[in-house]
C-alpha cells in the first residue's frame, strides 16, 4: 500500500488508535516505523528524530508487535523471550520473568509455543514487545485472538503503560476496542490520514442531531433552525427508517454537537413545531465509515448516518 504524505502526530504518554479499513496502509505504516521496510521517498521521524536505514538503534526504545506474533514453535514461551532478548536492545535477564508475569503467561512459560492458543501467542507477542521497556509501543491489532478477559487485561496493561508516560500506538479495525482504549485517534484511508485528534473532540465535532417533524412542516422547521446557524438537511438514512426526502419522511439531520440537541428542540418549539422524534449522538463507527467510505460525498447533499449508539 502506498502512503501519501502521512503525517501522524502522536503525543507522548497517550494511547493512540490508528484506524483504517483493510488495505488502507496501517500495516505498511507499522513496518516503516519498525524499519522492516523503508520509504521510496520522503522521511520518517520517530521519537522526535529522523529515522532512516542507519538509525536502527532508535528501535531500542520501541517495542513492536507487527502483524502476527512470530516465534520459534519448538521453543517454550520463556525460551523464545530469552532468545528475543539476545537481539536488539540490551535486556536484563530478569525482564523475561517480569513480562511473562505481566501478560499472565508465567505458569505456561515452559510450554512449547506450538501448544499455545492464538490468544496466548498474542499475549506472548505483547510480552516480547515490552521486553526492552520501550518508550513507544507499536501494536498491530493487539486484540487479535484474545478472549474477553484477555482483552480487558490487555486494555488495563496498555492504559497503565500510558499512565506511566509510555506512548502506545495501536492499529486496529476493532472500533469498539479503540474507542474504549484510545485517547487520540488517527483515521487513515487509501494511504492518507483523513482525521486525527482526541477522540472526544472528533466525535463531538462530527456529532449531529436528527429530528423528526411532520412532513408538511419540514420547510418551516428548516427556516426555524436557520437563526441558529444550522443548515438542516434531508436524512438519507439507511439505518432502517424509510429513506427519501425529508418532505416525505419528516426526518432532518442537524449537524451540531449532540450537547446542543435541546437548542434544536427549543427553536422548533418556539416556531410552534413539535418534534415527534429527536436523536442525538455520535460514535466512532459512524465517523469511521463516513471518512473511509469509498463512495464520493456530495457537498451539501444527504449525509448517510449508519448505525450507532444513538441516545
Amino acid at each position, binding site marked *: 500500500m502506498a502512503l501519501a504524505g502521512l503525517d501522524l502526530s502522536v503525543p507522548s504518554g497517550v494511547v493512540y488508535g490508528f484506524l483504517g479499513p483493510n488495505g488502507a496502509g496501517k500495516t505498511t505504516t507499522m513496518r516503516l516505523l519498525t*524499519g522492516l521496510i523503508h520509504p521510496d521517498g520522503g522521511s520518517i521521524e520517530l521519537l522526535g528524530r529522523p529515522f532512516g536505514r542507519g538509525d536502527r*538503534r532508535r528501535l531500542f526504545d520501541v517495542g513492536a508487535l507487527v502483524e502476527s506474533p512470530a516465534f520459534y514453535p519448538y521453543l517454550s514461551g520463556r525460551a523464545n523471550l530469552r532468545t528475543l532478548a539476545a*537481539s536488539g536492545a540490551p535486556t536484563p535477564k530478569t525482564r523475561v520473568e517480569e513480562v511473562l508475569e505481566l501478560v499472565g503467561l508465567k505458569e505456561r512459560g515452559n510450554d512449547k509455543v506450538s501448544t499455545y492458543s492464538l490468544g496466548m501467542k498474542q499475549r506472548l507477542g505483547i510480552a516480547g514487545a515490552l521486553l526492552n521497556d520501550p518508550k513507544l509501543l507499536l501494536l498491530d491489532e493487539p486484540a487479535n485472538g484474545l478472549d474477553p478477559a484477555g482483552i480487558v487485561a490487555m486494555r488495563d496493561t496498555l492504559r497503565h503503560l500510558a499512565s506511566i508516560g509510555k506512548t502506545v500506538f495501536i492499529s486496529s479495525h476493532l472500533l469498539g476496542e479503540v474507542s474504549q482504549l484510545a485517547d487520540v485517534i488517527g483515521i487513515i484511508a487509501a494511504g492518507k490520514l483523513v482525521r486525527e485528534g482526541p477522540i472526544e473532540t472528533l466525535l463531538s465535532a462530527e456529532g449531529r442531531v436528527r429530528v423528526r417533524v411532520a412532513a408538511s412542516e419540514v420547510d418551516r422547521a428548516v427556516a426555524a433552525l436557520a437563526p441558529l446557524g444550522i443548515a438542516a438537511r434531508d436524512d438519507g438514512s439507511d439505518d432502517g427508517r424509510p429513506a427519501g426526502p425529508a418532505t416525505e419522511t419528516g426526518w432532518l439531520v442537524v449537524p451540531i454537537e449532540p450537547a446542543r440537541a435541546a437548542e434544536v428542540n427549543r427553536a422548533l418549539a418556539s416556531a410552534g413545531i413539535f418534534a415527534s422524534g429527536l436523536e442525538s449522538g455520535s460514535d466512532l463507527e459512524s465517523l469511521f465509515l463516513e471518512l473511509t467510505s469509498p463512495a464520493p460525498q456530495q457537498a451539501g447533499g444527504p449525509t448517510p448516518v449508519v448505525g450507532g449508539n444513538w441516545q
Partner: protein
Amino acid sequence: MRIFISTLGKLRSRLATWLTLGLLLLLMALIYLASGATYKETLQRGNGQAIGLLLTFPDAYALILSFVLALGGLFVMAYAAAIAGSEWTWGTLKTSVARGESRSRYMLTTYAGIALVAGIGMLVAFAAGVLLAFVGAKLAGIPTDGISDTSIFGNLPEQFLRGWYGLIEVGAIGFTVATLARSQLAGVGAGIGIYFAEMFAGAFLPDIVKYLPFNAANSLIQTDAAVGGAGGGRTLAVIDPTTALVVVGIWIVLGLGLTALFTERAEISG
C-alpha cells in the same frame, strides 16, 4: 556474542539438528554394518576389496572422514537452508529487526552457529564412524590391529579442518539459497537441486564444474581411495587442494555476502 550463544541454544533444541545427525549416523550404520555382514560372501564372489578397504584400519580412518564429509555436505546444506528459511517463514527475523537488531549481523551470526554445529556434528559422526567400522570389521572377520596405528593421526587435524571448511562452504550455499527464496522448503529443495545439477553437469563440463561449490569442496579432501569430500565423492575433475582452498573461500564470501546484502535490502513482512 549474545546472538551467537542464543543461536547455539536454538540449534540444540531444534529437532532438525538431531534428525540430521541421526540420519547421517543411521546411513553410516547401515552401510558399515551391512558391509561387515556381507564381506565374506562378497569376497567369495571376488568383489570384496573395496569393502575390505573400508573396514581395515588405519586406512579406514581417512575413508570414514571422507565418507562423513560426502554425506555430511548434502545434509549440512539442507540443514543450513532449513534454518535460514525458517527465519523468514516463521517471522523471527522480523521480530529481531523490529527490536533494532542489525539484519546482516543477525543472519551471519546465525550462520556462524550453524557452522560450529556442523563441525561438532562432523566430529561426532567421525567418532561414530570409527566405532561402526570397528564393529563392521569384527563382523567381517577383518583384523582390527591397525586401529591403534597412530601414524595416520598426524594428518587428520588438517583433514578435519579442510573438511569443516568444505562443510561451511556448502552450508553457506544452502543458507544463501534459502535466504533468497525466503523459504525452508524452497531452500532445501533448491539446494539439493544444485547438488545434483552440479553432479550431472560434471559429466559434460568438467573444467567448469570443478570450480563449482560442491566439487571445489570435494577437492579439499583427497584420499587415495576417496569416496568423496563435502561434495559427495562424484568429482570427475578436481582442482588441487591449495587452489580449492581459495575457490571455496570465494564461494563462502560470495554466498554469505549475498545473504547479508539481500537481507539488508529486503522488505520484511510476515
